[in-house]
């Protein structure tokens, strides 16, 4: 097998007395679409936050393309990474957040061009051209001069995706990107992600509660509970024939909840 693009080696994360991730290891292959599912509080969002360097590790190592993320070599020893090392490593990774986190004081276009101009030194015109291509891709070219406040949730999230893509990361992290959306706005965001999956060879990790989407989008599904991977495998296996009792009971709960929701919506329509 090729070198994994992400190699997580026995990482542990504690917040005080609470162990969120417990000696966890897994690998992600380049171009792989990985869905992280599990009950809330199971640690799946924390993994994305650690990969984005928003949260530190308590112990363990993470390799991105064979290079240490949270550590660096100094005098033949591994020491904690400094800001310069983290800065370099972050170039490979982009993230989309549950609550969009768009910059409210900037226009849609400025939201997208800000980082390329500041971190990569891309000239203004070039950055704008590239941003317009991305806005075209997410279907929001006509909103370029609007402020985020005037957009719907689904539109905000599509801008946020374009903003992260502008830095051309190899790995994209999607943290419950449709959880804050009204149900009728979920599809427009998922279809942008689907398109990304089809048209690029980007590695994508998504934490999601959209089981239907995880099922037909992901190459592999990891089921988490209490900071452990309980079960992992291709979506057909996890969703139709889960081996573990905990996976089964989780899926029963979310799938029946999803069904109820769908029925309710159908009844309203």
């Amino acid at each position, binding site marked *: 097998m090729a070198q994994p693009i992400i190699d997580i080696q026995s990482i542990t994360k504690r917040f005080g007395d609470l162990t969120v991730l417990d000696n966890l290891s897994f690998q992600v292959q380049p171009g792989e679409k990985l869905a992280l599912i599990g009950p809330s509080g199971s640690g799946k969002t924390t993994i994305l936050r650690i990969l984005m360097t*928003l949260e530190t590790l308590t112990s363990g190592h993470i390799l991105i393309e064979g290079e240490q993320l949270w550590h660096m070599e100094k005098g033949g020893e591994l020491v904690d990474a400094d800001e310069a090392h983290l800065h370099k490593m972050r170039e490979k990774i982009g993230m989309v957040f549950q609550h969009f986190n*768009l910059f409210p004081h900037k226009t849609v276009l400025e939201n997208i061009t800000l980082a390329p101009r500041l*971190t990569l030194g891309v000239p203004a015109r070039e950055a704008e051209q590239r941003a317009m291509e991305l806005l075209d891709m997410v279907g929001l070219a006509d909103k370029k001069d609007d402020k985020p406040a005037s957009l719907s949730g689904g539109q905000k999230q599509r801008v946020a995706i374009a903003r992260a893509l502008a830095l051309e990361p190899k790995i994209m992290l999607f943290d419950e990107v449709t959880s804050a959306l009204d149900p009728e706005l979920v599809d427009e965001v998922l279809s942008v992600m689907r398109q990304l999956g089809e048209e690029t060879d980007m590695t994508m990790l998504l934490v999601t509660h959209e089981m239907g989407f995880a099922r037909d989008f992901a190459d592999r599904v990891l089921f988490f509970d209490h900071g452990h991977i309980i079960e992992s495998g291709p979506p057909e296996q996890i969703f139709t024939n889960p081996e573990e009792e905990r996976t089964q009971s989780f899926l029963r709960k979310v799938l029946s909840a999803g069904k109820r929701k769908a029925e309710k919506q159908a009844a309203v329509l």
Partner: protein
Amino acid sequence: MQQWLGYLELILDGAVLTVQLTVLGCALALFMAFVAGLARMSKFRILRILATTYIEFFRGTSIFVQLFWAYFVLPLAGIPVSPFIAGVLALGLNVGAYGAEVVRGAVQSIDKGQKEAGLALNLTPWQRMRHIILPQAVVVMLPTFGNNAIELLKGTAVVSLISLADMTFQSQVVRAQTGSTAMPFLTILVLYFAIAMVISTTVRTLEKRLSDGLDVTK
């Protein structure tokens, strides 16, 4: 009537000085507010200690005493200061200490998702502050800054104590010469109020212009 016009001119001369003190005092206060407010959140301990010391000292002692120190004690230490400079220093440093806490509070009030988005886009700490946090925080600061500026304007009256001929000083002169209390004090009452109105109108206009798209002030 003729005579009153002459006296009015005297008071207006004082008003010019009051405006100068207010403008320069505010400029210094604004500068100190940002320097000390940001230093207070620095990751370097020494900067935090310096900023906290400054803020607590100038908030914890009266502006009256600070003015006397600037005017009478600094020269003893070999630093000659004119009354005007002493006035600007005392006003600016005093109000700047309050402003520093406003800066800190406003910066910390910005949603932490904004900082995280900046980090995920690989912006440096300074770039995040400059392009993401401060533009939003300034809108939060403005109303309180407006209050502080008006406080500073009213504080300028204490400089008459070190014989600076500001508006209040001049009205005392007029009162002494004419024996009339109502006319000079009514005049400066109106003038202080007018200057304060200019300040609050300016701040409100700025606020409107800068808060476009933000939901902090509606």
